[in-house]
């Protein structure tokens, strides 16, 4: 049973008895209960006629079954299309578009870190490395029959049998007779059986039948000597260098930092002349930076004193020009085999990973490096998986520089190293409370390190998964070209003047192979800025939704609210009401069957509460109660509630009725 519409109630309130007025007002102020349509089909009909969406009305208005069916089909497909398109829109919401802007402006000059390829002066390292060198030379002699020419003899050959360290015994170079398990020990010269898994540094060796000249070394777990790893190399050059580096790191790990800095090159040693932006500069513009593998490096424009130099003109004469002194005679013959310097161009906040991405500079040549500056910016979550500051990454940043993927990977490895081997690897900074590995304290570290490194490379440590890209990064694209320097005709005076510049510290004339000229400059002052922008904003998403809804059905949020109202709230309440009435009827029937007449009155009265017509009428007397089924037939209450009918005339007439009734009553 539908309660009368509010307007009906209002109209009735006009000229009613005070008691009725009160009930009417109560009815008016009480919340409207449920929809006015008595049945679901009527509700649907009403909805279709009155809704703002377009398809539905056609279904009701159309005549003929086929046409109606077609309209139903069309409406449903429109709904389907809307749902599909909106889903697509939602799925594409988190996409990014890339924009590239080029701006011409004054550019900050990047930091330029310069290192000598040779980390420490060989002459000053003698005390530390003599043992190792002796061992290496002996290996060369034993395996290759190489003995140094008389001119190059640095140490007397007789000392060979002096007491070597235990450690050299532990990790000797081995020569493998064949692919079977026998090898010749370098020191004792005796053959022995080799057990353990074989790691090949050079995988091609596995396939080669000629295994006579395989050379390598064996690393064993000190606690459990049966577990060994064997490293073999196809070439003795690689094998000796790797082996040398292993021991070298051992030795260097024991030397304190201050000593190492003294052993390496000073700024005066490295830099002969310096020229920036048309003005002279000197070692005060450089900051020392100790790199574990490259010794003392010098960073130009490191921004340490707070000021960062900038360039407002491109071209080679406005950039950095340095002449470097590379003392080739003082190179370590086994550690480094190439001559020159290494440079890296980086941001002031970035750590220079010179061993990974450095550019090498030739001696006796002018290297001109033209730069192009590109700045990139990615969108962080949820667009892509990158990190702004690295604070959300569970790896402690061991370098006191801003986050980068490289830093994260190195820190992660170092942490794993400290956790599993108990000491830190020499090439990376120390975590708090750890110290560098050396074979006196950690005899086992090398085996551990190699095992761990193997795991790291195979991505078993999980570092590659933990570490994320940085969201913004700066990049300097370099174009390197080389010219001969000094030219044959200017060589003479140039070397003389440069020797004079060098002053009294060296009392020999410079050789041109000891010098390298480096020019670093901006090719142009265009800053290329590549940034990702969200392709969609919420506003655009909503207007796309609106476009889709409007295109297919002329629908809006209002329609959505309508649909929710009609299909969920109203339909549900109709269904509920019906069920309730059915249940009540059933209950009443049962009661009546059981008890007969008396309960009928109470029943009627209760029905009267629900029945709006009854409420409008005088309170039910016994007689009226008896005649109760009658009002059901009366067309008055049966008329659908007027307030949402379409036709105005109808409305007018129905609204009229209470009035006329009242007039009649009066």
């Amino acid at each position, binding site marked *: 049973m539908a309660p009368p519409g509010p307007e009906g109630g209002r109209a009735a309130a006009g000229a009613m008895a005070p008691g009725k007025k009160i009930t009417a007002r109560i009815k008016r102020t009480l919340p409207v209960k449920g929809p006015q349509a008595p049945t679901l089909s009527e509700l649907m009909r009403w909805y279709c006629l009155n809704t703002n969406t377009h398809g539905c009305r056609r279904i009701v208005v159309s005549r003929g079954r086929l046409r109606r069916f077609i309209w139903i089909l069309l409406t449903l497909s429109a709904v389907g299309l809307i749902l599909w398109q909106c889903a697509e829109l939602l799925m594409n919401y988190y996409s990014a578009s890339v924009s590239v802007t080029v701006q011409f402006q004054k550019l900050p000059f990047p930091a330029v870190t310069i290192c000598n390829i040779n980390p420490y002066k060989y002459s000053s390292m003698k005390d530390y490395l003599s043992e190792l060198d002796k061992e290496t030379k002996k290996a060369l002699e034993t395996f290759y029959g190489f003995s140094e020419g008389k001119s190059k003899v640095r140490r007397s050959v007789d000392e060979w049998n002096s007491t070597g360290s235990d450690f050299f015994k532990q990790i000797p170079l081995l020569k493998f007779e064949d692919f079977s398990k026998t090898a010749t020990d370098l020191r004792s010269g005796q053959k022995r059986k080799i057990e353990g898994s074989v790691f090949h540094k050079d995988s091609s060796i596995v396939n080669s039948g000629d295994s006579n000249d395989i050379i390598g070394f064996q690393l064993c777990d000190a606690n459990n000597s049966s577990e060994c790893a064997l490293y073999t190399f196809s070439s003795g050059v690689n094998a000796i260098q790797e082996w040398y580096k292993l021991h070298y790191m051992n030795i260097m790990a024991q030397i304190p930092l201050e000593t190492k800095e003294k052993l390496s090159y000073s700024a005066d040693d490295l830099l002969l002349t310096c020229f920036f932006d048309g003005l002279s500069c000197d070692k005060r513009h450089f900051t020392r930076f100790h790199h574990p593998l490259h010794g003392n490096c010098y960073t130009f424009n490191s921004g340490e004193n707070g000021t960062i130099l900038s360039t407002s003109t491109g071209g080679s004469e406005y950039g950095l020009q340095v002449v470097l002194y590379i003392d080739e005679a003082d190179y370590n013959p086994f550690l480094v085999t190439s001559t020159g310097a290494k440079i890296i161009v980086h941001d002031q906040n970035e750590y220079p990973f010179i061993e990974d991405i450095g550019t090498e500079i030739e001696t006796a040549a002018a290297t001109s490096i033209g730069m192009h500056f590109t700045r990139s910016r990615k969108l962080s979550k949820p667009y892509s998986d990158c990190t702004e500051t690295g604070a959300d990454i569970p790896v402690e940043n061991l370098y006191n520089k801003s986050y980068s993927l490289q830093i994260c990977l190195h820190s992660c490895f170092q942490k794993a190293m400290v956790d599993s081997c108990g000491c830190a690897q020499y090439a990376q900074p120390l975590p708090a409370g750890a110290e560098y590995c050396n074979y006196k304290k950690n005899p086992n570290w090398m085996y551990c390190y190699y095992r761990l490194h193997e795991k790291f490379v195979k991505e078993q440590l999980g570092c590659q998964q933990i570490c994320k890209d940085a969201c913004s990064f700066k990049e300097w694209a370099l174009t390197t070209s080389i010219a001969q320097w000094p030219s044959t005709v200017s060589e003479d005076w140039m070397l003389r003047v440069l020797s004079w510049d060098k002053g009294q510290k060296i009392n020999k004339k410079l050789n041109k192979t000891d010098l390298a000229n480096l020019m670093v400059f901006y090719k142009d002052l265009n800053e290329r800025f590549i940034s990702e922008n969200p392709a969609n904003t919420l506003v655009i998403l909503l207007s796309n939704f609106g476009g889709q809804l*409007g295109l297919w059905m002329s629908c809006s949020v209002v329609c959505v609210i309508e649909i929710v109202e009609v299909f969920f709230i109203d339909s549900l309440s109709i269904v509920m009401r019906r069920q309730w009435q059915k249940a009540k009827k059933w209950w009443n029937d049962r009661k009546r069957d059981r008890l007969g007449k008396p309960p009928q009155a109470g029943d009627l009265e209760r029905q009267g509460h629900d029945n709006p017509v009854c409420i409008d009428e005088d309170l039910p007397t016994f007689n009226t109660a008896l005649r109760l089924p009658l009002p059901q037939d009366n067309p008055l209450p049966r008329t659908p509630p007027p307030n949402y009918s379409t036709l105005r005339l109808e409305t007018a007439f129905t609204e009229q009725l209470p009035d006329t009734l009242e007039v009649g009553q009066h």
Partner: protein
Amino acid sequence: MNLKKYFVRALHRLQKGPGYTYKELLVWYCDNTNTHGPKRIIKEGPKKKLIWFFLTLLFASLVFWQWGILINTYLSYNVTSSLSIGFKTMKFPAVTVCNANPFKYSEVKHLLKELDRLIEAALERILQPAPRNSSENASPPLDLRLWHQIPLVLIDEHDKDNPVILDIFESNQTAGAGPASGSGSDNCTYRNFTSAAQAVTEWYILQSTSILSKVPLQERIRMGYQAEDMILACLYGAEPCNYKNFTQIYHPDHGNCYIFNWGMDEEALNSSNPGAEFGLKLILDISQQDYIPYLSSAAGARLMLHQQKSFPFLKDQGIYAMAGTETSIGVLVDELERMGYPYSDCTINGSDVPVKNLYSQYNTSYSIQACLRSCFQNHMTEICGCGHYMFPLPEGVNYCNNEDNPGWAYCYSSLRSSITHRQICIDSCKETCNDTQYKMTISMADWPSEASEDWIFHILSYERDMSTNVTLDRNGIIKLNIYFQEYNYRTISESAATTIVWLLSSLGGQFGFWMGGSVLCLIEFGEIIIDSLWITVINVISWCKGLKQKRAQARYPDAPPTVSELVEAHTNLGGAGGRPGCPDGGCMAVARGMPRHSTLCAAAVLHHGSDPRVGTQATFDF
């Protein structure tokens, strides 16, 4: 006639009053508008009415807010970039080759003789500070005129506050920063260098610039390297070419430069195949023996790839090629196509840049480097009164030299280090909208190999000098390969992220999404506003009339009040909804429809038939 009718009608309307009230108008609008919300306001019960009223308001404000955002987005003129990469037939870049040394020493020796002797003596002094009289006796006396204009000095900074300045050719020591130079001007600056090599080079460049600037251009071109001497062999793809295919251009830094495929006279060459086979192969001779020893210490060829019809700025973009090597250069064309104003601040041909392009005398296109240099030269001619030798001259100005402009070096160096002047130039120059860069992958190998050395030198010498003697050597010969890489272009092109179509569809989308509205709804709304204005106008007029009548009444208090009664009756109906005398429903019915509808009128009259007073009023009103 029609007009008159219209005016008469309007007059009647004014006399009669508007005919309907604001409320009626609003209700009518709500009922008949195509936007979705308002209809519900009047169709629902009181509770829902309230809810719908607020919902409609909320949606309307949402729509306006989002429209604001959309319009803002549109006006920010964002661009989206699209990147394309691949290989296509493209114009081969123009290739400029120069010698790192500008002039043959043998040709300019007579001009630089004095200077060279001076610098040799100075070096002697620097390297052996103890004065030696014997050497000076042997050689003819030095011309110290050049020296006095810009002397080289030693600055002893052991005592920081009181540096000792020592002129190399004078034994007397001058302390402090007093004017130790004889340049004649009152203000002097010391440019100090930490390295003697640097100082000597800079000093030499300044002096030689001054000397060479007096030499006429034709003479300078003759003193430089000639094409037939420099370009020994040339091969483009499978086609042979020779030095005649190169355009000569005089470059102040590098003397004679030669440009291949500049596209000034004939069409630019296309290359449709990647790889060294289809590129340009050159063999150059730089004859290192003939270098000016103090001017350029680096030896090699300087080359640059650039666009057709653009000026090669070798100092900025050029690369070196080393003697005795084969340098292979793989080229990738990196293009950036930008949209002009208002999307990005760039210029299409430089015509809107407030700097006079001095490089247009070479018939070359605008570029930012050209603009910056022109800007500097313009400043230089304004301030110093002469033009710098390295840049082209504006009309009616001469190059600076020590005789005519004794203070030019000081003026130049202060201008060069002036940050403000640089900033002015940076601000006034704009980059070009279509920016093309050539990304090069450079690799080198020794050339010629030891085995082939002999015959190669022999043939090349024979071809150049028609002699059977070998006149070339490793130090002078350079091989160049320039070719397109497998992917030869990378184009980043901009397109507008927001167009007017985008804006309209987004606006429509928003309006549609929240309220189901369209442009027609806006027009409807505008109509209602006009209507309500009209009502206001009519009301004001009738109110004025009423006021007049009141005054008239005041003057003649006995006058029959018929008119005022009528007016009252009219207002009575307008506000009928709230009156106790009027039954609610009936009035609503009237209020709801536009009163002009005749059917409605009938209905209304019918309804109120029971109450004769109202009835008469209603009939009267319409």
